[in-house]
């Protein structure tokens, strides 16, 4: 299965619809229009969506199975008991994929984290995406999002194989 993700340094208000449009076009799947859950989370029929925001970076992941993404600054302070920031992004991405929130078990590392992929977001940031299936392909769209209808979406999608 595949995960489609985008990371941007400055997320404008309309980047989620653009990301969804790119995903719809790239995956060829019948995905509904973007809506918002009561807590503000973006949702769409036919796709699973996860978003993450941190200082200087926003990221969105889309897939046809439950998916979670978390991005953090590499230099963010974290207590030694919690492990590294990379460890933290794995736990968060897993919790978001599960939809369970961060339980004590996940935080303590008592639960094996689902198959995940580390994402090469930027020099300053680390991110993890977690899926309810083995991640075979991770598609990353570069910084300059093509506008919807420009016809350049395919050419701008970079493909990388991550296991």
């Amino acid at each position, binding site marked *: 299965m595949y995960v489609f993700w985008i990371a941007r340094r400055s997320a404008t208000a309309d980047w989620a619809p653009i990301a969804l449009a790119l995903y719809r076009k790239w995956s060829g799947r019948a995905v509904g229009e973007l809506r918002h859950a009561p807590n503000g989370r973006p949702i769409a029929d036919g796709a699973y969506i996860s978003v993450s925001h*941190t200082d200087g970076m926003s990221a969105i992941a889309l897939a046809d199975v439950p998916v979670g993404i978390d991005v*953090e600054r590499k230099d*963010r302070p*974290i*207590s030694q*008991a*919690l492990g590294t920031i990379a460890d*933290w992004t794995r736990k*968060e991405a897993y*919790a978001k994929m599960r939809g369970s*929130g*961060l*339980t*004590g078990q996940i*935080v303590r590392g008592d639960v094996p984290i689902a198959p995940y992929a580390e994402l090469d977001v930027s020099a300053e940031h680390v991110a993890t995406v977690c899926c309810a299936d083995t991640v075979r392909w991770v598609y990353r769209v570069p910084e300059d999002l093509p506008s919807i209808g420009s016809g350049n979406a395919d050419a701008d999608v970079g493909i990388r194989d991550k296991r």
Partner: protein
Amino acid sequence: MMQQTFEQLRTIICGILSVDADQVTMETNLIEDLQADSLDVVEIIMQVENTFGVEVEDEDADKFKTIGDVVAYLEK
């Protein structure tokens, strides 16, 4: 004593979130008012556990919205 509990808790929160003491009242909402994210909340709960010698269960932590909620929990 509730005031002492509040002040200890305030110190923890100010340290982790880098906010001033006057930004933290009993009604302050960690997430909405102080922009705490989930890592911040976990760090706060860990320090609360160490400082007050308690073990916060998930179902209790889920109910923490304001500082007052945490103080009420610790006073029980």
